[in-house]
């Protein structure tokens, strides 16, 4: 059975090898795009299959003869890492095959270098999930951050992309410091950096809380939790689309994995207020993300904010699971955790799908601005229909996967009334209501995203030349869309697969409940309270959709008369008269005006070519980051007084230090 872990390590090494071959033959464009990237995708599939079997197999450990002397890398494969490896492999396969068709010659970095960075990125994520000591984890984690930084700055000739990359690197490193300190606190009592030792020794007093908060800070920075989210809307639009898809779909989940590992596996006792903290931060992130997604005018930025929203929802689920676990309700904790993990998987699929679709749109039109797109469903039917799957899943509509996990999450809220904490019982229904609001607003944002890009008439003339995605890109999109549908239609299968993970973390599972009703009916607690049958939904949709379609065609279209209108102020209709991205988002902007920081210019009424500008900015820049920057600058100016620029003075510093120390030791 130990072979499983070895095979997974081999897959990761295979990715590294592909990267090295890519850089060695960086001039062989066809070799890289037609052979190496698809091969990487095949390895992703293999990894997914291996990880699936790892879910049921017991934990396996290995010690790699790598690393520093006396400090080898420890690897461990258990159900939790198996699940996240499955996510990496399955979503990564689709993204890789898409990337094979996406990377072109002469765009920013050469494909050979992209190939190396991309596959190092994949391999490092696999090692993050396998690592079993703090040292190996940090090495893999930093490799992941660095390789993704280089991927983000692929088109480093643009100053704004360099700026976005720098911001990303900065936040990633600050977060890494938090993680390192957290490991340090846990290792402090264990005396050893292996996770085994951390599991064995329980820290006492305030130390577990400190470790947890540091881990929350560190992993929150990577996941894009609220005050640390600023890199996400900058880095995602800057990166090439497959990279954005990989970062949003998979890399953010490594942070979830890390927090799960630390808070559920390595730390012994969970305090209930940790869960409340997670819940509130997650809720704030989700609300913030979805409001900002609704008012964006850049399509990739919109998706980036939507990622913040989804991560927020995942943290809400995590917080709920933590609360239930601390109150010793393993079954409810398992329900919340299942919803969380399910949503991780779903988000990996639909968000990657949407990011890749924006990549195709970007390639076809060269535009990221929603205000200059429109009507692409006629020119790019493949991309448009597959993106529709992703948009519906992201909006949380049945029968797609987004619905199932959000439904499960709301279900787990409905069972909170029995908790022995009065305030919690009052708080949780409010949170549940907010989650429902978030789901609705997410639907709004997706309608905006899809409607403005693909429906209506083209807003620019050059859109008529748009071409559909190539064959490899279509395969990638198809794979992810199929995943969205399958995950939505077969929830019981997925929940049964998640059973070992929840058993490992909260010692409770939904596997038995899920399988007791057959594959077609999902009833997480009991059939009388709530159940969902994707099959019935699918059948009724399959039945009613054509019915409505033909009825409309038959009765409505047939009766419509085309007569010369008396115009009524519409002597002609142009594409400029359609609802624009700004116009569509206007109600949300009005309602949530206090949260947004907005600058706009109204044209003068006498302007013959009126232009309307409106810019919505992240208020956190002004509330948090700019004051922080000023503080740092003031501090450095004080310290800069030491820098006199004369070597003699510098030498004098060390001389005086030496003398002082000597005299001190004497006394």
């Amino acid at each position, binding site marked *: 059975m130990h072979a499983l872990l070895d095979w997974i390590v081999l897959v990761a090494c295979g990715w590294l090898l592909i990267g090295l071959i890519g850089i060695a033959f960086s001039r062989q464009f066809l070799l890289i795009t037609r052979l190496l990237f698809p091969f990487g995708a095949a390895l992703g599939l293999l990894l997914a299959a291996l990880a699936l079997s790892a879910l049921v197999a017991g934990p396996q450990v290995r010690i790699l003869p790598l690393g520093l002397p006396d400090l080898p890398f420890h690897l461990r494969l258990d159900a939790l890492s198996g699940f996240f490896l499955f996510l990496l492999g399955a979503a990564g396969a689709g993204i890789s095959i898409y990337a094979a068709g996406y990377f072109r010659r002469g765009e920013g970095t050469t494909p050979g270098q992209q190939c190396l960075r991309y596959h190092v990125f994949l391999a490092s994520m696999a090692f993050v999930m396998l690592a079993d000591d703090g040292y190996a984890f940090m090495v893999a984690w930093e490799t992941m951050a660095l390789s993704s930084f280089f991927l983000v700055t692929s088109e480093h000739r643009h100053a704004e992309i360099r700026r976005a990359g720098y911001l990303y690197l900065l936040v990633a490193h600050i977060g890494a410091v938090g993680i390192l300190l957290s490991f340090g606190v846990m290792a402090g009592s264990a005396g050893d950096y292996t996770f085994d030792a951390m599991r064995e020794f329980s820290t006492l007093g305030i130390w577990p809380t400190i470790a947890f908060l540091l881990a929350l800070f560190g992993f929150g920075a990577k996941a894009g939790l609220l005050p640390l989210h600023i890199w996400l809307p900058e880095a995602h639009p800057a990166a090439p689309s497959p990279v954005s898809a990989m970062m949003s779909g998979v890399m953010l989940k490594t942070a979830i994995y890390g927090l799960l590992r630390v808070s559920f596996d390595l730390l012994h006792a969970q305090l209930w207020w940790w869960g409340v903290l997670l819940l509130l931060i997650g809720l704030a992130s989700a609300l913030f993300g979805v409001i900002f997604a609704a008012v964006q005018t850049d399509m990739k930025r919109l998706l980036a904010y939507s990622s913040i929203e989804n991560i927020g929802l995942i943290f809400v689920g995590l917080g709920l699971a933590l609360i239930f676990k601390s109150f010793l309700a393993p079954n409810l904790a398992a329900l919340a955790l299942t919803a969380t993990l399910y949503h991780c998987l779903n988000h990996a699929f639909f968000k990657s799908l949407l990011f890749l679709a924006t990549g195709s749109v970007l390639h076809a039109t060269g535009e990221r601005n929603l205000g200059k797109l429109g009507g692409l469903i006629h020119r790019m039917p493949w991309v448009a229909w597959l993106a529709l799957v992703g948009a519906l899943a992201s909006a949380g509509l049945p029968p797609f996967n987004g619905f199932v996990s959000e439904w499960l999450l709301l279900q787990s809220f409905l069972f909170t009334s029995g908790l022995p904490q009065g305030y919690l019982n009052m708080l949780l229904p409010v949170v549940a209501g907010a989650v429902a609001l978030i789901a609705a607003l997410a639907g709004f944002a997706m309608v905006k995203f899809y409607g403005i890009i693909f429906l209506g008439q083209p807003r620019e003339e050059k859109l008529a030349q748009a071409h559909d995605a190539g064959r490899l890109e279509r395969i990638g999109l198809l794979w992810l869309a199929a995943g969205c549908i399958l995950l939505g239609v077969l929830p019981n299968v997925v929940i049964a697969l998640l059973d070992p993970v929840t058993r490992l973390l909260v010692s409770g599972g939904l596997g038995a409940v899920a399988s007791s009703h057959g594959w077609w009916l999902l009833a997480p607690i009991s059939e009388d309270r709530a159940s969902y049958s994707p099959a019935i939904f699918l059948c009724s949709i399959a039945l009613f959709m054509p019915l409505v379609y033909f009825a409309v065609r038959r009765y409505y279209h047939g009766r419509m008369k085309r007569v010369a209108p008396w115009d009524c102020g519409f002597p002609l209709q142009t594409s400029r008269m359609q609802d624009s991205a700004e116009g569509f988002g206007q109600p949300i902007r009005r309602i949530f005006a206090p949260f947004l920081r907005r600058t706009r210019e109204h044209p003068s009424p006498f302007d013959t070519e009126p232009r309307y500008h409106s810019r919505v900015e992240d208020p956190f820049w002004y509330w948090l980051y700019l004051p922080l920057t000023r503080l740092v600058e003031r501090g450095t100016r004080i310290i800069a007084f030491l820098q006199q620029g004369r070597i003699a003075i510098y030498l*004098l510093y060390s001389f005086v230090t030496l003398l002082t120390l*000597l005299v001190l030791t*004497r006394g």
Partner: protein
Amino acid sequence: MIPTFLHAIPLSSQVINLCAALMLLLAFAMLAQRRVLTLINLFMMQGFVLFVSTLIVALTTNQHELLVSAGITLVLKVIALPLILHRLIRKLSVKWDIETLLNIPTTMLIGIALVIVAFNVAQPISQLSGTITRATIGIALACVLLAFLMMITRSKAVPQVIAFLAMENGLFFAATSATYGMPMVVELGIALDAMVGMVIGGVFFFHIRQQFDSLDIRQMERVKEG
């Protein structure tokens, strides 16, 4: 007639004490010296004294590792480094007088104060140490501090490098006198450090001169940020 207190001290110790005194004297001489060529010669003499004292310690205490140390000292500090320095100043044609940031008498006064401090500080260490050379620890520390002072007060790059090397001499002397020498690994490391420092310094001389047409490190103030 020989004073009675000298009878208690064996000859080897007396020679070592003499060497220590010479070291200190040479350190002061370097501090006071204005000419680069003489400075290099003084440095060479200091290296030789160090070699002699290490050799005597090695022979009297039968520490064979110290013999190797002494050999390294001879090769590196008495022969190689002075040669390199001579070649360097010939190439750079910088045989001029050294400008100091403080005038020489003031520097000497500070140096005397430093020696007092060094003796004061070294007293508890020499009481702990059981070696025959323990009386010289204070002197060794004083050599280190004096070389450091020289590094601070010189404004030209070449004398600074010499001061750096002289500091290393003092350090080595302190190690020999306190514990019969450092472990071989550390010693080799330090010797290598001195060598590398020398090479880097050499490279820097050329760059500084190319950039500023002078070897005066006060020019470096312009490089400072902001």
